[in-house]
């Protein structure tokens, strides 16, 4: 098992499993409401033209969040075959 890295570091097309969600308060609540909880599978779909925000695929839908919001989330990247 690899150590968790920040969600920000993922490349487009890369998949990962959420390890921790460090955000508290409103942001934390919002992130969790959308299903970004430990154990959830995510995949980076793409980034906005200015590289921020980032678009993620999770639980069958697409979600966007800013890089500084993604910083609160650590993931374990899926090993590429």
């Amino acid at each position, binding site marked *: 098992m690899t150590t968790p890295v920040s969600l920000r570091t993922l490349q487009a097309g890369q998949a990962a499993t959420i390890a921790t*969600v460090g955000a*508290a308060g*409103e*942001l*934390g*609540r*919002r*992130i*969790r*409401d*959308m*299903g970004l*909880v*430990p154990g*959830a599978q995510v995949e980076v*779909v*793409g980034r*906005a*033209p*200015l*590289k*921020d*925000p980032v*678009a993620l*695929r999770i*639980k*069958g*839908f*697409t*979600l*966007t*969040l*800013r890089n500084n*919001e993604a910083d609160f989330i650590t993931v374990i990247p899926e090993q590429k075959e």
Partner: protein
Amino acid sequence: MHSDTMFIAIAGNPNAGKTTAFNKYTGARQHVGNYPGITVEKKEGQTMLHGKQISLIDLPGTYSLTAYSLEEVVARKVLAEEKPGAVLNVLNAGVLERNLYLTVQLLEMGMPVAIALNMMDEARNQGLQINAVRLAELIGVPVVSTVARTGEGLETALEAAVTLAMQPTRPAPLVISYGQDVDEALLAMTPIIEEHQFLTTHYPARWIALKYLEHDEDILRQGLAANKEISDLLSAKVSTCAKHLEATLRTYPEAVIADYRYGYIASLLRQGVIADTRNQQNRIAYSDKMDRVLTHQIFGPLLMLGVLYAMYFITFKLGEYPAEWLGVAFEWLRGVADAALPEGPFKSLLLSGIIDGVGGVLGFVPLIMIMFLLIAMLEDSGYMARVAYMMDRVFRFFGLHGASVMPFIISGGIAGGCAVPGIMAARTLRSPRKRLATILTAPFMTCGAKLPVFLLFVGIFFEKNQTLVMFMLSLTGWAVALLTARLLRSSLIKGEATPFVMELPPYRLPTLSGVVIHTWERIWEYMRKAGTVILAISVLLWAGMTYPGISDEAAATFTSKRTAIEATMPEGDARKDALFAVSAEEASAALRASAAGRIGTFLEPITAPAGFDWKTNIALIAGIAAKEVVISTLGTAYSLGEVDPEENTTLADRIRNDSNWTKANAVALLLFTLLYSPCLVTLVVIKQETGSWRWSAFSFFFNLGLAFLVAVAANQILLLAAR
């Protein structure tokens, strides 16, 4: 409140087809209003089921029932206080897991819930098989498969909700485990709540305890108000639990609760509810392909510029025709009244006060209508979310939202727009602070009514660089709007940036059902509420521009001048011109003697640093009614009679030859016109959209002050430079 008819609430995530279902149920029998004091829309309607009348309320789309957003607070308030007989929970079958998160919270609240498993067609096409019967068994509530777009299953779903609502007792709230620590805290807190009947008239006891653990601001506030002692006791228990979780698991109750909710949902779905045989040809994959182009690093912004320009173009080009017809109709009405009534103050009031006022109100209706239809289409299609996604990085810096770009463009971000539909377009913004900042700064854009003033003065003083100067003015509008937004967001409307976290819904063809009714309701609201205020104020402004007028002696002088001309000059064009000149002079004198004229004259010493004399002052005061009249008022002040803003060569010549006008004060006037107080209609719409006259007043004074400072600075600097 809803005692005589059955009352059902429709709840669900945004983009789950909730509103489509609501529109199918109610058709035209719906009403859109606002919840008191806030800008969240309240949609209510009626429907019939087997001869029985049913009241429906379409709750705002939410992902959760925390107190995260106004929508969630409102939805929860309706559920707790209006106590619907049942909740019809519309779920997007393709995103079942996340959609059930709301369902679980509804059940925790003890609501009788019937599930409409919507968008089953999409799910099926994606190769997603959902066993509705199994889901119903596991979760313990009726589940009906629906396709709201076509109406499939909707009646059955409503029947299920109605059956629930007719049960004599409400179901027991759903109890799930949140892990040992939280469960223990709940066990300790619930009896206290029950014993003291703490908030229990509206909410189940365990749910209140849960909300305390989640640190729910709304419930904490209610609790403190109801019984501070008990509230403090509960908070103490919460902090014990929180400390323990922090020490042992380095987490906090709120996170634990959310994890367990999702855990519960995942375990439900694993028990044979869902069979995912999705292939690559599903809608999301299709959407992804479209996104590869539509949000592409280079093509994305280019296409967006195209879409925004098209929005602008369609709104104002298409809006031109009905506006023209209205113009013709009102011109005709004016002509009839002009011919039928004797000269006098009543005629003047009717023509210049009332008919022009009503015409002014109605003139915006086509623009508002087209704007709402187009924005609804952009939102329904999923493109609006992409605009916000692409623009976020830029607008965030100024404390705005990516979606702020739309109100800005419509307000005149592309020169020639209009702030009235522009400000209304800010409804697409969910975050109240960003929305307010957008509304307050959008009027700085170059709206269509400012253009004639620009064209006149730029034509006179910048003959060689007209296009460049016009473009610079437009850019100045953008710069001031964005910088002011930044200033406001770090002062008056400060507040932690709301999280951006947002769904990018799959692209869908927009359904226009409901949009037309919705648009009509908005226009009716505008005409009824804004229209009456605007009419009243335009009558006041008319009076201000007319009274007290010139003295009888002065009027007599003009009459005798006219008699003299008629007596001495032979009939013909020369006499006509001479008579016209006298009338124009009288109109100018009358204007100067009116309240507005007196204020304009009185202000002369104050506006002198900007280079404005009384004529300019009056024109600018009149411009508060509508920027269109700046030119015509200037014409009257220059004794030129009525000046057509489009055909103003005489006025241009007068200004060109007037030594009082220099490049310096012309630039000051251009900048002042760009930035000063929004017009009357815009001020009224600001009140309507923000819910407070305070913001209209702020907009009036702030913009006026800012424009004045900028105008003085421009005039003084250019005067110095010219020396």
